[in-house]
């Protein structure tokens, strides 16, 4: 597989045509997406036109941009003008937005070529992509297992070599967890770093768009392109965007790395004990985090210590309550965000005798089980008499989380934990809602605080499946996070490519 960096530099240099690059990837999609089902829509014709335009620009001496000719897959909850944007829901099946999301504009302006729209858990509610109205996506490492979710289609597309880059959205871990399960890199930037304009909202105060890539450098390149202030998003941060790629080569010497006690046991060997342990490091380890995953995190911490970082353990007590707070606030926001799907203006309508009946029947038919459950949960959490006990209390836990992270970042530059408590699981294995929700235990705290976090592959766990390590940083601390992620990538044991990618013939130029 070729990286986005290599493709872009070759297309910019005129040594390779965007059209040829595209056909290679389209060929792989045609061969394997029947098995993987990463895509809801493959936009081959549009992509061919876009690639031809890139080639024409390059031939005409104009720079097509930093992502020249790089195929990119967009999660199907990012608005693309004239191209179906379904959120993997019957509710929006066939809906064609009249506008592009800001990130779609940014990627296109940088020369990227949209290859298709990827599958997700309906309206991004899930951790396995099993809750898509159009059938699940399969993990390229093992087609009997889930790719994670909700951005499972984007993660699987990159892991299967269908595109070097993809964008997803992360509300409670929906970029990082599937990246972890698919053995690739996934970044959730600081809330507000990337514009949400054109991202179909799930939970507005958590949603954040970010990139998937096969390596940290490509992920940083994509992050460079999509970051920055957008006046169309009131929650967009008006801060300068640093050169993320420049952060990759910096060493970790002198950086202070905290392993989050509540999310990381002490392991078989009691590893990661080097360095000081400031603060209260006595937090109790949460249940349900697999031993093999914990081992990899501890090995990653050791690798950073070897590379010159100061490693210690740190307690972030509020993470214990993160899951609960999240599963009250996010459904509350969702219940309101998804009210607009009422059969009036766009999407599905089931006729009724009056508007109210039309609304009820449309929403019954248009939403899947998990979406209905969360809408009702959120409606309940906001309803008269329950607001203070549920939504209100959860908002206070959110503040608690903010404070605990602030305290941790007073002593450490970055924090380390597992991304997912387990490796990719089998379809149907986590049917109970709470069991499924626990997939997000390690990722949710950074959504509550709004801080950046990412997943980097670091070895394998059970059945040789990929394990991801989560690197967390304070708000706008993406550079340090990337520095540490690049160091982990250099130290990581080689990860076998997914069987799919391995059997894919390499016929195109440049590979």
């Amino acid at each position: 597989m070729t990286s986005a960096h290599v493709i872009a530099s070759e297309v910019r240099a005129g040594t390779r045509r965007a059209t040829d690059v595209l056909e290679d990837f389209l060929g792989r999609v045609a061969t394997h997406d029947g098995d993987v089902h990463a895509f809801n829509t493959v936009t081959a014709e549009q992509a061919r036109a876009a690639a031809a335009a890139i080639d024409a620009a390059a031939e005409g001496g104009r720079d097509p941009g930093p992502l020249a000719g790089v195929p990119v897959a967009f999660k199907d909850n990012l608005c693309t003008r004239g191209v179906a944007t379904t959120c993997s829901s019957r509710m929006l099946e066939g809906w064609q937005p009249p506008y592009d999301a800001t990130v779609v504009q940014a990627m296109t302006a940088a020369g990227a070529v949209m290859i298709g729209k990827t599958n997700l858990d309906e309206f991004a509610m899930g951790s396995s992509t099993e809750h898509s109205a159009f059938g699940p996506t399969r993990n390229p490492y093992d087609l009997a297992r889930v790719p994670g979710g909700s951005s499972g289609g984007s993660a699987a597309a990159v892991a299967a070599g269908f595109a070097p880059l993809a964008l997803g959205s992360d509300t409670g871990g929906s970029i990082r967890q599937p990246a972890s399960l698919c053995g690739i890199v996934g970044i959730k930037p600081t809330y507000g770093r990337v514009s949400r304009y054109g991202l179909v909202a799930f939970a507005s105060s958590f949603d954040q768009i970010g990139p998937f890539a096969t390596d940290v450098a490509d992920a940083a390149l994509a992050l460079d392109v999509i970051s920055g202030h957008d006046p169309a998003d009131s929650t967009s941060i008006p801060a300068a965007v640093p050169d993320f790629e420049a952060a990759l080569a910096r060493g970790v010497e002198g950086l202070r790395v905290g392993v989050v006690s509540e999310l990381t046991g002490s392991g078989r060997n009691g590893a990661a004990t080097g360095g000081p342990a400031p603060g209260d490091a006595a937090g109790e380890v949460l249940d349900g985090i697999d031993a093999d995953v914990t081992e990899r995190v501890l090995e990653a911490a050791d690798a950073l210590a070897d590379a010159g970082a100061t490693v210690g353990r740190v307690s972030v007590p509020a993470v214990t309550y993160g899951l609960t707070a999240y599963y009250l606030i996010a459904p509350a926001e969702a219940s309101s965000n998804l009210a607009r799907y009422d059969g009036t203006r766009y999407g599905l309508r089931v006729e009724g005798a009056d508007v109210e009946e039309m609304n009820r029947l449309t929403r019954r038919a248009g939403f899947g089980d998990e979406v209905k459950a969360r809408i009702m949960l959120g409606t309940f959490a906001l309803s008269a008499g329950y607001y203070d006990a549920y939504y209100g209390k959860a908002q206070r836990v959110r503040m608690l989380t903010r404070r605990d992270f602030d305290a941790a970042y007073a002593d450490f530059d970055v924090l380390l934990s597992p991304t997912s408590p387990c490796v990719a699981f089998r379809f149907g294995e986590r049917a109970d809602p709470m069991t499924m929700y626990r997939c997000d235990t390690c990722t949710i705290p950074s959504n509550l605080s709004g801080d950046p976090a990412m997943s980097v592959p670091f070895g394998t766990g059970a059945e040789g499946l990929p394990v991801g390590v989560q690197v967390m940083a304070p708000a706008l601390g993406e550079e340090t996070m990337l520095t540490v992620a690049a160091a982990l990538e250099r130290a990581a044991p080689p990860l076998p490519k997914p069987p799919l990618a391995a059997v894919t013939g390499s016929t195109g130029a440049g590979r």
Partner: protein
Amino acid sequence: MSTDQVAHVARLARIELTSDEIEHYTGHLGRVLEHARQLEDLDLDDVPPLAHPYPLRNVFRDDVESSPVDRDEVLSQAPAASGGQFEVPPVLGAEA
């Protein structure tokens, strides 16, 4: 959470449910809310609520027009339209 509460919430959320489905969601929501009881013991009276993860204030736009969206493009996506407007079934329970 009782089946009555689930039925009430489904009405508020405008989702038609059969009695079997109400049973199902009573179980589903009940399991999540059971977990939420962990917050009951937490004394957070001194902790203010946090609504926004990043503390921005006073974000505005100037009062300047931009071009509207194309009506035909939007109405072509509507379930029913007539005379440049969105068409819906009769609205009950309010005044014209």
